């Protein structure tokens, strides 16, 4: 009997990275706490998110127990299915808030752009790994095309924030694969030069999001309202915060989207600078652990994949907190592991599971 328990328990924790899981759960726990406050003590929202968390943990466990070889095998089909689904969205998608992002599957709706966050780095890691010894300029060009297909489809939805972040996660793989600095610099310059060319083709609301960053007061009750109210929330929190459930910006409805993209403003208002430092430290720990796993990964595929996933956590956290604190434009990016929402949580824990799988298999795998 005890043996059986031991076996089951062993099976459960085998391949699970305690440190990674610990920090992730600490962040998600804080997230539930803040969510409770942000939703004015809505038990339904909090238990819903807790359920999402349980499901995400199961996904993580499965992902941790799948070997990197399997991931390598799934890279191409996953990417292909993802791109097909994105095309499906473009043709038959459901419009929510003016964007065509969702694909209705009868009982539930899925957001195919979410799975591309994993599928794109996976495919690129597979591609570079396959090229092995000879990574040439043309390989980078091919990779760039592979990135631009889903990015273009997502940007058309329009969901510029997700598109840019997926492009970023693709770029991370290119960067870690050794993309020549000259090309990086040249590409950066070309992008900068492209801004005035692309600008007229962007949607009006996208213009506003960027312009409002420089001057929130240009539209204090509209686009600028988010930034103004979130900086007031953060700033008025001070060093120690106003205390849990005591944020006036939060509880008197001044903060918009406070349980999703702007949850960090609630956190900052109620827990102050101290809370902010703790959260930054937790993210830093998570990312540092990801780097350790990346550095000790045994194959090019796992190295590239682990590095890209780790940097994905970073870029999400950074862009979200930068947006809430008013140094980056408002793009619809949730705060990883904290914002309310099931799809993002599942994707992130899937990423963590893949990292765990890579770590567990660091010595066993040969290419």
């Amino acid at each position: 009997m005890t043996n059986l328990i031991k076996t089951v328990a062993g099976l459960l924790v085998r391949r699970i990275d305690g440190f990674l899981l610990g920090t992730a759960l600490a962040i998600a726990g804080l997230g539930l706490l803040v969510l409770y406050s942000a939703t004015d003590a809505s038990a339904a929202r909090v238990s819903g998110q807790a359920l999402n968390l349980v499901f995400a943990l199961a996904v993580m466990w499965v992902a941790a127990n799948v070997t990197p070889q399997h991931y390598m095998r799934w890279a191409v089909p996953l990417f292909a299915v993802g791109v097909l689904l994105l095309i499906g969205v473009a043709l038959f998608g459901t419009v929510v808030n003016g964007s065509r992002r969702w694909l209705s599957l009868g009982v539930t709706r899925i957001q195919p752009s979410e799975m591309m966050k994993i599928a794109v780095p996976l495919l690129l890691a597979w591609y570079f790994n396959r090229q092995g010894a000879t990574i040439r300029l043309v390989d980078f060009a091919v990779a760039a095309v592979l990135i631009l297909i889903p990015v273009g489809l997502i940007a058309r939805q329009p969901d510029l924030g997700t598109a840019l972040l997926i492009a970023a996660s693709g770029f991370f793989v290119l960067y870690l694969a050794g993309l020549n600095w000259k090309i990086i610099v040249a590409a950066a310059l070309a992008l900068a030069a492209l801004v005035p060319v692309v600008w007229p083709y962007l949607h009006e609301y996208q213009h506003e999001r960027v312009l409002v960053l420089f001057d929130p007061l240009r539209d204090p009750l509209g686009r600028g309202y988010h930034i103004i109210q979130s900086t007031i929330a953060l700033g008025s929190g001070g060093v120690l915060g106003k205390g849990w459930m005591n944020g006036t910006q939060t509880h008197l409805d001044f903060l918009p989207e406070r349980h999703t993209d702007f949850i960090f403003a609630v956190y900052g208002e109620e827990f102050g600078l101290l809370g902010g430092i703790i959260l930054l430290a937790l993210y830093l720990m998570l990312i540092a652990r990801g780097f350790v796993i990346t550095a000790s990964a045994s194959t090019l595929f796992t190295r590239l994949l682990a590095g890209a996933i780790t940097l994905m956590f970073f870029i999400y956290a950074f862009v979200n907190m930068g947006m809430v604190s008013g140094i980056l434009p408002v793009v619809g990016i949730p705060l990883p592991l904290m914002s309310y929402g099931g799809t993002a949580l599942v994707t992130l824990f899937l990423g963590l599971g893949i990292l765990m799988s890579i770590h567990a298999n660091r010595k066993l795998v040969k290419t």
Partner: protein
Amino acid sequence: MSELRNPERELYLFRRRLALAGGVVVFAFLVLLGRFVFLQVAMQSHYATLAESNRISLVPAVPNRGVITDRNGVVLAQSFSAYTLEVTPSKVRNLEETIEELATLVEITARDRKRFRKLLDESKNFESMPLRTRLTDEEVARFAVNRYRFPGVEVKARLFRQYPFGELASHVIGYIGRINDADVERIEERNETANYKGSDYIGKVGIELSYEGELHGTTGLEEVEVDAGGRAVRLVSRTPPISGNNLQLSLDIKLQQVAEAAFGDKRGALVALDPASGEVLAFVSKPGYDPNLFVEGIDPQNWDALNTSPDKPLLNRPLRGAYPPGSTFKPFMALAALHLGKRTPQQTINDPGYFVLAGGHRFNDDKKGGHGRVDMYKSIVVSCDTYYYQLASELEIDDLAGVMKLFGFGQKSGIDIEGELSGVLPNREWKRQRFAGKQYRDEHRKWYLGDNISVGIGQGYNAYTPLQLAHAISTVATNGVAYKPHLVKSIHNTRTGSVTMVDTSPSHTIAMKPEHWETVKAALVGVNKEGTGARAFAGAAYTNGGKTGTAQVYSLRGEKYDAKRVGERLRDHALFIAYAPAEQPRIALSVLVENGGFGAAAAAPIARQVMDYFLTGKIAKPTAPALPPPVDDESD
């Protein structure tokens, strides 16, 4: 990129890039940390203030406006609380749609919409403005259930002003109305801006205007926590408002009603004073208007009707109408003659029916053939023009004006409502100024003896308000003791219960020999006994004195006046001044009936009714309707 694979070097390069990425991560997080420190430490107080001003809304608590009562405590103006449906346009997405939707819950008439449109044009978008006033309890309940659907729309309890008697005494009480730009300036001048936060109304005319400072009260302050929709969540602190003071007028509303009823459809004015204190007992300006129309902003139709009517219902005649006094000027001429030593009471003149000025200009008497031998008594009793033509021709105009000034002619009486006119007490200097313009020549500016003649019988350049006439006869009644007329008798502080009585000490005394007063007053009594006022005062239960007057509107240039031939608006004004009882006067009054014809026929009977009612409680002819019921609904 090497052709041959070198795992060691590859790993080294990879780790270098990873380390660089790590550096970027740390740097990025330091940037975030810096931003947090900036917001939460350096700018903390700034943002805390912003959060507080988001959260806390200072809501002024509007004080209850003081009540105005007559001398017996009958309420003439009061405030009551009622629910209004208010809209803050800046917080409403689509105003038209919102109003349409609201109309399904609460009745909103076309008139409400028009009035709301007008308010919209006049005020700022972030102000809350009434769409519907005086909601029923049921309507309040119906809206409350649907409130969530209407951000920026609220039900508020507001104070309304109501004038129960409508038109009656409207020119005394005046009205309040919504504060406009001119009012804001006045408020700023008086440094009262803070006290008017939240006040929507202010006195516009009459007592409501002149006693604004007493009636308004002190605004309180409520600190309220509000949510992003601007709705009050919780009361943080409260400084209660202090109600305005109540005013007790010296006016007797029943007497006022008798007086107004006595006028019937006639246009004119009546001022009745208590000669012993200057208290205004009745103050009539006909026609009047319903002050209730103005409180919520008058609609364009009613406004045009009032403003363009040839009857000028908005003109406060006793205060701002200047009329020649006609023969009511004669007793004062007599007093001036006695005082200046130009006549003795016994001195007589011969009246052939006209007076010829040196130079040949002939002035006709009213009576063809004249009154024969006329002394001072008779000159007043029969209203002999020739007597006064002659007297005036012997007087120096500046001396005459000096005496008339003592009676308050051409002077503001100092009554306690704003807007009083001075009228015209002509003298040499006045004429020089009056015709100072370039279009006039020197001979226009010169004073001629002929000017004296017209002035002597109350015509010519003379122009006085009915209030001045009442004040002057009141001063005669007291043998020269003058009081400043006042409408407010006492001011009641509702909080402390203290009562401030208005000063009723004499403003000045005209020093004249007692026998002069007796001479003229005996003549005034004679007027109502055996003279021009005898018919109107036949059978009066009290002793009384008076003087009739008829003032020319239209210059006849020597023709005989015929009321039937002259257009109604060009007919003479009828005047009458009186006081009673003769020995110990308790009431003194002036009556003016515009285009009424002869004073004896048109004005004296009105004076009779008012005096009868005041002194005996009865009216000779029961013509007055019952008091109107209090207005409790706005009806079109």
